[in-house]
């Protein structure tokens, strides 16, 4: 299949692993930021093709995983209200809050619907004027432009029954947070190709310079990742710390200007709490004042309360890249994809779920 099969080719994979083996002299740790890349790495066993001196650290880049537990509780509360149709992306439905997940709300009679785009939620709002339609807006800079355009569309249609629970998060502040950590072992980054297809990569240049780390914008197919790793290792071996672009077929330096513009017109930058990590300054989006009427958080009175994660769960350490899922005492025992304790076990892009699905079966 064009644009897919050629990036999953065995001969080329062998070629790249050969090049990497020849190149590497030192010991290096590279973090792939994005959960989609983590999924590919574990699914295709890419880490097992690398020399022992190269470690891949899985980053916090699964937007589903880092959505704060309090917000999931809030979503579940709103979704359970009579007269509300609650719309969400599919993989958000199974994320556990402190008392239930959205599928649980649905099983108890709540009108919870899976949508593929926030624009679908606008359509549902237009078709159901006597109902309140709430969209759970999660995701990185990749999904934020579409959320923004849904808001503009709802405004244009004059819909007063549409609102958003916004939890959009941004990648560069998370990279800075990882690099500022005391015990940070990361020496180079694979940046998320789809995020950069929207944002470009100019905002990564000051990070590479300030922290002296190479950053390679990388795609998601196995060969993309192998090439990205090779480019990153080459910089590390040569003592360089530049931003380079592996994902040439989708990413330009300046990104998608129209998407950036629409996003900025609807959202402003705000501090955000990341599940398992804590608050990161300037790391998310909230609606601008002009669009405050679309804020579900303001529209619905729901209790907000701080919630503690289960003590045994080390998802914070996993999301920061300090620990691997295997190092968790609950992994595969109390914590499984059917009964997740922490967020990385939920989404297929979470590191724990990927390890469980592709690695653990033999040890169960």
């Amino acid at each position, binding site marked *: *299949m064009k644009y*897919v*099969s050629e990036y*999953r*080719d*065995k001969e080329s*994979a*062998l070629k790249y692993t050969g090049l990497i083996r020849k190149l590497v002299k030192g010991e290096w740790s590279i973090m792939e930021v994005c959960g*989609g890349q983590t999924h590919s790495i574990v*699914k*295709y*066993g*890419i880490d*097992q*093709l690398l020399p022992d001196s190269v470690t891949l650290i899985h980053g916090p880049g699964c*937007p*589903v995983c880092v959505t704060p537990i309090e917000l999931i509780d809030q979503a579940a509360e709103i979704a359970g209200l009579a007269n509300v149709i609650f719309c969400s*992306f*599919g*993989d*958000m*439905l*199974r994320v556990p809050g402190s008392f239930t997940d959205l*599928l*649980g709300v*649905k*099983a*108890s009679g709540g009108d919870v619907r*899976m949508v*593929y785009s926030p624009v*679908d939620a606008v359509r549902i709002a237009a078709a159901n004027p006597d109902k309140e339609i709430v969209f759970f807006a*999660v*995701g*990185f800079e*990749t*999904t934020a432009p579409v959320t923004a355009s849904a808001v503009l569309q709802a405004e244009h249609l004059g819909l007063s029954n549409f609102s958003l629970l916004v939890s959009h998060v941004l990648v560069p502040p998370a990279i800075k947070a990882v690099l500022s950590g005391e015990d940070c072992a990361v020496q180079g980054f694979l940046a998320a190709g*789809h995020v950069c297809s929207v944002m470009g990569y100019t905002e990564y240049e000051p990070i590479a310079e300030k922290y002296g780390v190479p950053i390679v914008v990388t795609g998601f197919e*196995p*060969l993309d990742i192998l090439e990205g790793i090779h480019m990153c290792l080459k910089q590390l071996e040569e003592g360089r710390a530049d931003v380079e672009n592996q994902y040439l077929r989708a990413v330009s330096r300046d990104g998608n200007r129209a998407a950036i513009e629409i996003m900025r017109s609807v959202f402003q930058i705000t501090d955000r709490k990341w599940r398992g990590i804590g608050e990161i300054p300037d790391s998310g989006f909230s609606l601008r004042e002009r669009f405050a009427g679309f804020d579900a958080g303001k529209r619905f009175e729901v209790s907000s309360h701080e919630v503690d994660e289960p003590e045994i769960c080390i998802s914070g350490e996993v999301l920061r890249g300090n620990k691997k899922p295997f190092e968790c005492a609950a992994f595969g025992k109390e914590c*499984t*994809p*059917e*009964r997740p304790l922490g967020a990385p076990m939920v*989404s*297929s*892009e979470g590191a724990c779920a990927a390890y*469980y*699905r*592709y*690695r*653990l*079966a*033999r040890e169960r």
Partner: protein
Amino acid sequence: MMENSRITGMTCPISISDYPEITMAHGGGGRLMNDLIGKIMLRVFSNPILDSRHDGAVIAVGEGRLAFATDSHVITPLFFPGGDIGALSVYGTVNDLAMCGAHAKWLSAGFIIEEGFSMETLWRIVLSMAEASMKTGVLIVTGDTKVVDRGKGDGIYINTAGIGVIPAGINIDPSRIVEGDAVLLSGDIGRHGIAVMAIREGIELESTIRSDLAPLDSMVRDLLSEELDIHCMRDLTRGGLASGLNEIASMVDSSIRIEENLIPVQDEVQGACEILGFDPLYVANEGRFVVILPRKNAERAVEILRGHDSGRQAEIIGFVEKSQYADVLMTSSIGSERIVDMMSGEQLPRIC
């Protein structure tokens, strides 16, 4: 309520605190559904015929043997590219019987219809059932019709149960699977699941994907007409190829090794899966099955399957190997190895 049950001393084994209510994932064909069946139904109903966990029950009657299977059909939309609930309800049971090596003979049909359902639509569905039963030579010999209040059903649900006759000398039994056996797949995977989902969710694809819905009885009949010593057959429905193979592996305590590059997937299906973040190995089929038989007979079996319309893409996709683990291993397209686990609940589309 358990305390009123005549069977005393049994408490519900799926802890109420885990799942106080049935979720959609309990019907998704993955691990949760297996748990539900294993811990509740099999435990309470346990008997040697049920415990064999075949696609249908195999029952000795006098000198001969009968196969008995049932299947309920709830699907939205009722009509989809490549089929409809009528044909599905007939082929579903005929195929389950075929997997036991049986010729389907008689079916029952139970209809649960929602008040207000269109008579014209019912007529189309019934005609489709008649056509499907004619094609497979099965007779619908008994039935039942109930109507429920508007809003209490999803248009129409159809249950069929069927009885088939297993010819003398046929001994299909997963316990006969041995190390070295070949694993055959009868065609490309994932079409039914994606076809139905595309319609249901309004996903516009460049070309229409047709469900693979098909009767498997004639293919099975041809396979059984030669001395191929087939050890096991299983039709792939919900949960897809991955769940089907995992179920077989768990029944025989062996490992099944398959090769990703040998598994046929239509480009359009692969494309839709890429967009949705699905793995075709877990997507539903309605006209595909796997055959496990001695390696020496595998090539001939493939030839036979390829002689049929829905078997044109049949392939040997792997082998059974000795292992202390009952699981499925796959050599990926880039040459690495991974475990193909059973699906946990349902596949949910990924965010990005």
